[in-house]
């Protein structure tokens, strides 16, 4: 018995060698393009044009970063906005989503199925862009306000259902016991349900934060002030402007001033600057991430 288990173990180790190699290669395939981007951001524009992208820069050159931080106001402002909407959007988003989910998870809630249908039904189709644009600009007056980046999409129905499924696994007797001890519904929610739901909350928080960090579309639609645009929007605008100019070179009557188009190295540097922080946070969330996803999915 013992022996056979050992041989089995050895077998496992043996078969895992090709697996290791596969994942090493796979990791490299993912890593090399990223290193190339980093290296490109540290190269000079002329070197990039002459020698193309390389894993190590031909010559170290900090022009791109110097240019970026020479006028740091733009980058810092955009960072400020993105961090603000990420923090505010995540805190309120998770809180509200948990509240909705808590109601839907309680078996004692009378209108549960009606409410579930009410929030689920609109996810099947969309009212279109114009409708939400009119609501947001003309009725809610969100134009040029940071609220336009936080409020629409604060509650994600998919996430609500994920939290609900998780909360449903908490025994109803636990809440009854709390009630007998004199706890109000709020106390049950904040002091019992939420602390027990940490894994799924972390998952949702991470998804929301990622979503808000990548926010650019609402920023494009509703923000008029260049000081209030998000980091991703700034990047997106820079890249897309280049594309529009390149595509229409023949049409634009005065031709395009090439000197105005940022070089490849600058674009890569912007990329690094914008994804940097997210990359630092990701590993800390990751353990919750996998746990929350699987735990929430057990009972579908």
């Amino acid at each position, binding site marked *: 018995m013992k022996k056979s288990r050992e041989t089995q173990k050895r077998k496992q180790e043996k078969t895992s060698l090709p697996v290791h190699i596969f994942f090493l290669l796979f990791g490299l395939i993912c890593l090399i393009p990223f290193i190339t981007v980093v290296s490109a951001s540290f190269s000079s524009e002329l070197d990039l044009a002459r020698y193309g992208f390389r894993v190590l820069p031909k010559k170290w050159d900090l022009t791109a970063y110097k240019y970026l931080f020479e006028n740091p106001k733009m980058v810092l402002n955009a960072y400020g906005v993105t961090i603000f909407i990420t923090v505010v959007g995540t805190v309120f988003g998770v809180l509200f989503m948990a509240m909705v989910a808590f109601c839907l998870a309680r078996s004692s809630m009378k209108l549960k199925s009606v409410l579930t249908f009410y929030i689920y039904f609109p996810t099947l189709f969309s009212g279109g*862009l*114009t409708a939400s644009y009119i609501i947001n600009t003309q009725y809610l007056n969100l134009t040029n306000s940071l609220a336009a980046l936080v409020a629409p999409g604060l509650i994600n129905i998919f996430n609500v259902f994920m939290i609900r499924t998780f909360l449903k696994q908490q025994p109803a007797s636990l809440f009854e016991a709390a009630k007998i001890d004199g706890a109000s519904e709020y106390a049950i929610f904040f002091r019992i349900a939420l602390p027990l739901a940490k894994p799924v909350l972390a998952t949702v928080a991470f998804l929301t934060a990622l979503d808000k960090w990548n926010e650019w579309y609402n920023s494009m639609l509703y923000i008029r002030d260049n000081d209030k645009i998000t980091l991703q929007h700034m990047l997106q*605008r820079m890249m*897309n402007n280049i594309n529009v100019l390149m595509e229409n*070179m023949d049409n634009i009557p005065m031709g395009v001033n090439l000197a105005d188009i940022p070089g490849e190295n600058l674009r890569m540097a912007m990329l690094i600057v914008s994804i940097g922080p997210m990359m630092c946070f990701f590993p800390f969330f990751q353990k919750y991430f996998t746990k929350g996803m699987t735990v929430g999915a057990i009972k579908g």
Partner: protein
Amino acid sequence: MKKRIVAVMMAVLMGISAFAGCGKGNSSDQAKGTNQEGNKEPETVKWLLFGTEPEDHDMVMEELNKLLVEKINVKLDLEWIAESEYETRVKLAVSSGEDFDLLWVSNWMNQFNEYVAEEALMPLNDLIEEYGQGIDETLEDWVLNFGTVGDTIYAIPCLQILANQRCVMVQKDLVEKYNLDTSPVEDYRDLEGILEIIKQNEPDIIPMRANVKPEVTHYESLVAAEIWISMTDSSATPIEDDSVTWEAAKLKREWFDKGYIREDVATITDDSGDAKAGRYAVMTEAYKPGIEAAMADAYGIECVAIPIGNPYVSATAGQATMIAMNVNSERPEAAMKLFNCVYTDEEVFNMLLFGIENVHYKKVADNRAEFVENTKYSMSSKAWEIGNQFLAWYIPGQADGTWEETDQMNKNSIVSPLQGFIFDSTGVQAELAQIAAVITEYENYMYTAEDLEKTHKEYFEKLKTAGRDTVLEELKKQIEEWKAGK
């Protein structure tokens, strides 16, 4: 359960209709309120243009508005929207009924046709007669025609270069080194001598940038579907077969085989870095007077221009940049007054372009200005987008007399027999989208295809499947109708 669902749906529907109801009520009330206001206070005209907002925008606008109130008692609220976002934003503003007055339209971005089809533009005939005399005097009728559909003027073309002529820019030091012949040529093929010399003697430089479009020197296109009309054909009959693209493909292939074109042309997407680095000996550009100085400014490379073929005013030339008015504008008179002023008043126009004297620029001659170092306002490269470019002061890199020369070139060009004709693409949108996808797919493929003839046939077959014939029939029909109505 079923009953409950029905009940909920009813409730939702009722809620929606209730909201819709109060929405309408509100907006019409607002409209009434603003219309009843008196005209003593200067009205503010909102104008949407594309570009990057300069740092000192607010400061210049304040000064400009003082000037505008003094002259015509109107204020300007100018919004610069990023190039990539302009179309989305303006379309939303139009469809949601946002309050703004002037917008920029063209035939290549923020399509003029589409707005006309949606009846989103204000007819301008009466407004021009009453408040836009300056525009009327500046623009000859054939230019104004570019923004006219039927008898109605929907947009005013900005005055700039209208004639279209290709040219190639050859690096000046190469011209001197090899004593190259830079006299004007008739066809792309006449450039082969120059390219061969460079190929033989300069191994580090790519002889030709890949943006060659040999067909556009002899044919004009009314719709982006590889349908061409010969410039010398006065009956303006669209060419049905694939002869035009085949000739172009052959030339491209030949040049690639001879090593005039870079080897990785099929995969490269953005080669502006190479252009700036001076890796191309010869680059194709649209010719215009003063281009050599302008290019030296843009690329930092001294070049000599070789014009190809003859200047030609295509059927849609003036549509490249036009200003139109929102049909929902609440102050059309003020908007027309303002645009008329920008279009004809040198002081106002140049303030928009250059900012404030001695803060953003220095005047060096009557018609010439230089920006101060690190200026926080410089929109002079936007003259063609805002109004009459011929009123703009020259900047370093532009020779005196460039505008007069351009004006002459406009007037002396061969004019398309279809001048003023606009293809209405609303019926063939789906076909055009598919055709565009096919064109992009094959764009640079002709250089490297293994069997050129087969690939080209395949390309044309795909165009046909995508609906080229439908577009062709539609185009022919519209041209006939247009000719009959003339």
